[in-house]
C-alpha cells in the first residue's frame, strides 16, 4: 500500500528533478532502444506518407499512362509503372493509407474488444469465464489466416469485410493474454477493498483492473498492427481483399504475378513496402514490450 509520505516524497522529487529536453529523451531512447526507434521511424514515415499522399505522390494513383505500360524505373516514374501504366510509387504511397487504415482499425478494435472480454472474464470468473474461454478456444483452434479466409469467404470481399475477418481472430488472442494478467490482479487486496466499499462491477473493472493490464494490452496492440497489415496484404493477394483500382500493396503484388518475369519492379516494390512496414511495426512493438514489461527489460 502506498503511504501519504511516500506520495509526497515522489512529488517533491519530481519538482526537484530537472526536466529533460525532448531531444535528450529521444537520444536516450535511441540508445536504449535503437531498433525500436528505427521501427518507429518507419511507422512515422508511413503515417506521413499516408497523410500527405495528395502532396507527395507524383501522380494520381488511378491515372493510366498507356504509352508507358510496364516501364522500368526512370526519371518520370521513379519506381516504374504497372500493366496499365500507373505510377508504382504513387500507388505505394496511396496504398499506405489502406495498410494503415486496416492496421490501426483492426489492431485497436481487436485488442480493445479482447481487453474488455479478458478482464470481464477474469473478474466475473465462474460459469461466465468457463463459457467465454471455451468460445475463445474455438476461435483459437484455427490458424489466423484460415479463420480470416473463412470469414471473408462467408461475407465476401471488400475492405470492411477484410477488417472484420482480421479483427475476429485478434479478439481471443488478446483476451487470453489480458485474462491471465487480470486473474492475478483480481486477487490483489485493493480489488477486494473496492468491492467492500460497494463499487459497481463496471467501476472496479474500468478504474482498478483495466489500468493495471495496459502493459499487455499495448504490447498486443502493437503486435497486431504488423499482423493486420500482413493479413490484409495476404487476403488482397488472394483476391479476397481490396479490389482494383483502389491502391493496396497486396493487390499490387497479386496483379504483378502475371508480369513480374519481364517487369520485376511491379512485384519488388510492393513486396518491399509490405516487408518494411511489418518489420517497422514489429520492431516498434518489441520495444514497447521491452519498456512496459519490467521482467523483459532486465534480460
Amino acid at each position, binding site marked *: 500500500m502506498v503511504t501519504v509520505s511516500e506520495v509526497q516524497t515522489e512529488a517533491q522529487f519530481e519538482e526537484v528533478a530537472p526536466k529533460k529536453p525532448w531531444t535528450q529523451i529521444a537520444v536516450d531512447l535511441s540508445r536504449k532502444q535503437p531498433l525500436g526507434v528505427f521501427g518507429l521511424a518507419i511507422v512515422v514515415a508511413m503515417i506521413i506518407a499516408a497523410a500527405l499522399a495528395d502532396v507527395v505522390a507524383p501522380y494520381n494513383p*488511378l491515372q*493510366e499512362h*498507356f504509352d508507358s*505500360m*510496364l516501364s522500368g524505373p526512370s526519371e518520370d516514374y521513379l519506381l516504374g509503372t504497372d*500493366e*496499365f501504366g500507373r505510377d508504382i510509387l504513387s500507388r505505394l504511397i496511396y496504398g499506405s493509407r489502406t495498410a494503415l487504415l486496416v492496421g490501426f482499425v483492426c489492431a485497436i478494435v481487436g485488442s480493445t474488444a479482447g481487453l474488455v472480454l479478458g478482464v470481464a472474464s477474469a473478474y466475473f470468473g465462474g460459469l461466465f469465464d468457463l463459457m467465454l474461454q471455451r468460445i475463445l478456444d474455438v476461435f483459437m483452434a484455427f490458424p489466423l489466416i484460415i479463420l480470416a479466409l473463412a470469414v471473408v469467404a462467408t461475407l*465476401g*470481399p*471488400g475492405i470492411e469485410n477484410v477488417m472484420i475477418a482480421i479483427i475476429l481472430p485478434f479478439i481471443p488472442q488478446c483476451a487470453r493474454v489480458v485474462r491471465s494478467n487480470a486473474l492475478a490482479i483480481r486477487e490483489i487486496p485493493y480489488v477486494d477493498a473496492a468491492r467492500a466499499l460497494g463499487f459497481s462491477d463496471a467501476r472496479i473493472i474500468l478504474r482498478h483492473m483495466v489500468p493495471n493490464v495496459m502493459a499487455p494490452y499495448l504490447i498486443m496492440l502493437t503486435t497486431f498492427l504488423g499482423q493486420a497489415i500482413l493479413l490484409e496484404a495476404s487476403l488482397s493477394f488472394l*483476391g479476397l481483399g481490396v*479490389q*482494383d*483500382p*483502389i491502391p493496396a500493396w497486396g493487390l499490387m503484388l497479386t*496483379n504483378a*504475378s*502475371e*508480369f*513480374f*518475369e*519481364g517487369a520485376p519492379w511491379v512485384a519488388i516494390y510492393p513486396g518491399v513496402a509490405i516487408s518494411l512496414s511489418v518489420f517497422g511495426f514489429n520492431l516498434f512493438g518489441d520495444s514497447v514490450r521491452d519498456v512496459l514489461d519490467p521482467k523483459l527489460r532486465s534480460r
Partner: protein
Amino acid sequence: MSKYARFAFALAVGTGLAMGAGGPAKAETPKKGGTLNFIVAAEAPSYDLHKESTFAAVHPIRPFYSLLIRVNPDNPQSPTDFQCDLCVGSVPKPTDGGKTYTFKIKKGVKFHDGQTLTAADVVATFNKIISPPEGVVSVRKAFYKMVDSVTAPDDETVVFKLKFPTGAFIPALATPMNHVYSAKDLKEHGYSWHEKNVNGTGAFKFAGAVAGSHVDGVRFENFHVKGKPYLDGYRALISRKLAIRVQAIRGDRAAIEFRGFPPKQRDDLVAALGKDITVQESDWNCVLLFTPNQGRPIMQDPRVRQALTLAVDRWGGSQHLSRIAIVKTVGGIGFPGHPLSATKAELVRLNGYGTDLKASREKAKKLLAEAGKAGLKFELLNRGTDQPYKIVGTWLIGQWRQIGLEVTQKVEPTKSFYNSLRKTKEFDVSLDFNCQSVINPIVDVSKFVGSAGNNYGNYKGKDQELEDIYNQLIKEGDEKKQREIMRVMEKRALSDMAHEGVTLWWYKINPHRSYVKGWKIAPSHYLNQSLDQVWLDK
C-alpha cells in the same frame, strides 16, 4: 467462292501463318498411352453443360460425352464443316423444303454405366435443351427458336422438324455443350442430376474430382469410335492464377491450357522452352461485354447506358490491352471478319465506336447531365479470373472515370459471380461474355435479345422492337438481307438502347508442349475438346 468459303479460307490461312513457326503439319502415326495433364483457369460451377457456358466446365467435362454432330476436329476453323458423332454417315441434308432433318443413330453405343444409347436419349436431351420444364436452366434454348419438334419414330431415328428453313440450325446442333444424356437418367434422377454426376458416351469415363484441385478421366474401353481414344486418361488441373498456369507448362506439370494465354506469356514460354513449345493462334469467337442491370433504377435510362458505352475508347483499348490481355479486336455483335458482321466504317457510326474520343466523352457527360446522373456511383461486378476479366474490368473503370463516374469493383469467384449475375441479379453493371463455339452469328447474337436464356440485363419484355428484329433475322434466308437486319439489330442493341456494351473481342493464343499432338486450335475455346483425337508424342 462464296463469302462464307472466303471467310473459312481466311481463317485457315491466318491460323496457318500463326502456326508457321511449327512448320507444316505432317501426317504422323498416333501413339497410344499416357495421361494428358492440362490446366484450367477456373472450377466448373456444375457438370451440366446444358446450363453452363464456361470453359471451366467444358474443358474437364466435354471428354465424358458425345454429341449428335460435331465440328470436324481436323478442320475446326471451318464454320461449315460438321461430322456425325452419334449419328451414322455424314450430316443429313434437309428435306421438306429445308424444314425436316432426319438422323440415323449409331447402333451399340454404350453409356459409361452400360446402358445402350437409343434415339430416345437424343430426343430427351434436345427436349431438355430446347424446351426445358419451368425452373430448369437451358442457357442456349434461344438457339433453337426454329425447332418445332424433336421426335424418335424408332430406336435409331431422330427427326427434327423446323418451323421455317434456316442455315443456322445445323451449326446450332453442333454446339459442343449439347451433351447427349440418357433418357433413363433424366427420368429417374431428375433434370439436376447431371450437375453433380456424369454418365456419358464419351471417350473418357469420369474417374473422380477434388474440389478446387482437379478432375480425372480414364479411357472408356467401349467408346463408340474404334481405336480411340489414344490417351489412357487425363487430369484437368485447376488454377486461377495465370502465373501458376504458365509455370505449370514451363515446368511440364501440365502440357497445355486450352483457353489461351496473353502475348507476353506466350513470348516468355517460347523464349524459355524453344522447340519444346508449339504455339497455335486464332481469332476467337468470344467477346467481353458489360451488362447494365435494367432491374436497377440507375440503369433504366437509355441515356445513362449510352454514356457508359460512349466513354469507352475501344480503338485505343485494342492497341493497349492486346499487349497484356487476351483481347484484341474491335467489333460489334457478330464475330469480326465474318461476312455478316460490321465493317469498321459501319461500326464508327455507333455510339462508343467513333474515332473522336473527346467528342464521344463530351456527349457522354451531356447525356449523364440530362439524365440527372452526373457523377453517378455504382459497382461493377466482375469474375475472379485474371484473363481477361480483371484486366478489362479495371480498364473499364478507368474509362468511366474519364466522364466523372465513380465505379468500384466487386470481384467474385466464378460460382458466386454466376450466382450474382444469373440468379440473385445483385449487380449494377456486370462484366459478361458472349463466347460461342461454332461461328454462327445469326444464333450467336441471340445473346443480345432480352428474352434469351443467357441474357442477364433484365430487359426481357422491355424491348419488343429488338425481339421483332431478331425474329426477322432468324427467319430470313437471304444473306444480303440478313446482313442488313444484323446492322439494324446492332444499332438497336448497342447504340440506341445500349442494352449491352461490347468491349473487345478475344484473340486466342495456345502455347503448348510440342509433344501434344492431334489437337488443332479452333476459333473458340469450347470447340475440339473431346480429346479423342489427342495423343502424346513422348
